[in-house]
């Protein structure tokens, strides 16, 4: 068993509100995990804690041997290692508006990994090609559709080749056909041993593509397992509430 990610007793409070109340979970290499839960349940906060954008109060986050400490106490060397291990795709993509698609994708390879420009561009082109957006390489973020921007955000995160990729609500703004394409793409990404954690409200998407689903409620993991069994035969009231929320989609 090789856990790519191990979280134990993760606690995080914001003012008087306790967002995460002792979250524990482990993710194995090659998994495609769907992190589900009602809005405000702490899904995004967990992702942000894993990439150290959000300092947590207590607990352990271990990413492939890189251990994050509470209250931003993680040493710099560990932070650098963390950046090589985890990539993140934001819900609103946050592409760099002043850079072309190609420059968005090659920024980190050029300035962090110090790859030569031809090598960085070759790899960027290959990524854009595999994601079906090679024809947009000269475009600027504001010229892209939502689906295109998402795939370029994936390419940007993948450019550093992180073994663990986090995606926040990738299905939120996609129509069903695009959702299916995205699912296929994500499955393809896990084929070579990469691990994906995806937050989503879409149980169909989770059922069709995730290898495992983790249900979060009130800052805790309440249920987890094979998506087909968990989402067809929910045990916890929160999971049932989540599935009843469906008409809203």
């Amino acid at each position, binding site marked *: 068993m090789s856990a790519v990610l191990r979280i134990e007793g993760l606690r995080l409070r914001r003012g008087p509100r306790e967002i995460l109340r002792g979250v524990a979970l482990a993710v194995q290499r090659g998994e495609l995990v769907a992190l589900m839960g009602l809005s405000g349940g702490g899904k995004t906060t967990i992702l942000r804690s894993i990439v150290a954008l959000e300092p947590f109060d207590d607990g352990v986050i271990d990413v492939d041997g890189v251990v994050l400490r509470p209250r931003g106490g993680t040493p710099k060397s560990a932070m650098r290692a963390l950046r090589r291990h985890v*990539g993140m795709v934001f819900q609103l993509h*946050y*592409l*760099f*508006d*002043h850079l072309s698609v190609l420059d968005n994708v090659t920024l980190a390879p050029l300035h*962090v990994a110090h790859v030569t420009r031809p090598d960085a561009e070759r790899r960027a082109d290959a990524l854009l090609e595999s994601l079906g957006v090679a024809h947009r390489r000269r475009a600027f*973020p504001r010229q892209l559709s939502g689906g295109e921007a998402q795939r370029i955000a994936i390419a940007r995160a993948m450019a550093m080749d992180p073994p663990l990729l986090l995606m926040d609500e990738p299905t939120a703004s996609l129509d069903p056909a695009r959702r299916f394409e995205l699912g296929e793409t994500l499955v393809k990404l896990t084929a070579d041993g990469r691990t994906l954690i995806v937050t989503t409200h879409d149980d169909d998407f989770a059922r069709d593509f995730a290898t495992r689903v983790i249900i979060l409620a009130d800052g805790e993991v309440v249920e987890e397992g094979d998506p087909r069994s968990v989402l067809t035969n929910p045990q916890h009231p929160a999971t049932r509430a989540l599935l009843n929320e469906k008409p809203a989609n």
Partner: protein
Amino acid sequence: MNDEQNRVDCSSFILHRSSFVNGILLLIALYANANDNTLRWGGDAEGGAPYVEADSNDPAMVHGYDMEVAEELAKGLGRKAQFVQVAFTSIDQSVARGDFDIGMSGVEDTPPRRTALAATIPYFEFHEVLSVRPGDGDRFSTLHDLRGRRVGTLGGTIAYDILLQSQKTGGVDVISYDDDVHPYEDLKNGRLDAVLLDNIIAERSLRRTGGFVIQPQPIATGHYIAVLARENTALRDRVDEILRARMRDGTLERIYRKWNIWDAYQQPFFDRVLAQGAKTAAVAPAVQPRTSQVIVSYIPALLRASVITIVLSCAAMALAIAAGVLIASGRVYGGRILRVPLTMYVEVVRGTPVLLQLFVLYYGLSAVIRLPAFIAALLGLGLNYAAYESEIYRGALEAVPRGQLEAARTLGLTERQVFSLVRGPQAFRLALAPMTNDFVALLKDSSLVSVITVVELTKQTSIFAANIGSWVIPGALCAALYLAMSLPLGRLARSLETRWRAASE
């Protein structure tokens, strides 16, 4: 209830209005009255004694020998003298506009002035004298001795023209001032090697500040006159009559003695003036060059002044941008210890006049550090604009979405790289339009540095205008030069913006 309140408000409004109208009527009445029975004379009380100065017992009143001469003139005309404060350099324009009947207080007799205005006969003879530091008394007694040296004077005066003439032939280095106090202070503290000014001013400064000696050999002789609007020759002729009478009966001598300015030159000067006919001026006016020639001769000076303006503006803007980026970064990224003093700096600099800051930098600090004028001007404008630039950059930095910064961090960029590769470039695009605006404003604000002796375009233009007695042509040339500097800049900024917009839309 409401109605009643309305009525009360209305009536109080009517009351106010009627008292306001009454006030205006009263003022008009006073003014009309003033025109009939008073002689309104303009002078600059800032020029100080012995010409005119505010009375220390009652600062609303003035005294000085010019004031007493004016009283004599009023008495001779059967009117009451009324003083009108006017900036020394504006006396000519103001009297021509009709702000007052007659202008005096050390007004020099020059050919352009005689052409542009109705000038009286001269009533006082002065000498342009050199003042030097005591140790230089033996070295510098003529302009020739001061070759390549810095010599200061009041701009737009005969002394200034003499120095300018010397500079043209490779003589002294002229430094022009807007007042007659600071040249002597700068002489004392070593910024100047000599000052050339009227003996009255030199002697007054010697009494007041000291620290220098006046060379006994005069460099030139000049005369003070009074000026009236060009069409006002009838009044001018009556004033001339009164002046002659007061020279004859000893009244002027009495006044001059009282103010300690009577010297051996005055009696022979009075005799010459009285010997001349009523029509001819005491000083033969020099041959007037044609106006078109004068204009052509000023163009090189205006172009040189434009170079000063553009170099100063560009250098000050570069400083403002560099310091502005540092201040903005400190305020956005820094801790409290850094943020508090930077915020204070921005508030203090934005909240006080740049003119005051220039004075403090150049004169106020001269005891501690003696900055050359150009450097003081550069620092003053640059550090002032840095406060404004920093606010633009701070706003622009904060306008870049946080999410992009976080995305950059998750990619492994260091904070410095996030700034230089993601945040800075986008903030710069947002800041470009307001920066262009500020640069154009700075270009024009650079005219303020003339107060610390830097002769830039506006100063050169006002010297030009004073010499030919008109603002029309110098003003048009000056405006054209400013536009020639600011228009290309606006174009450059617009084309950059268009290029970036085309790239990102």
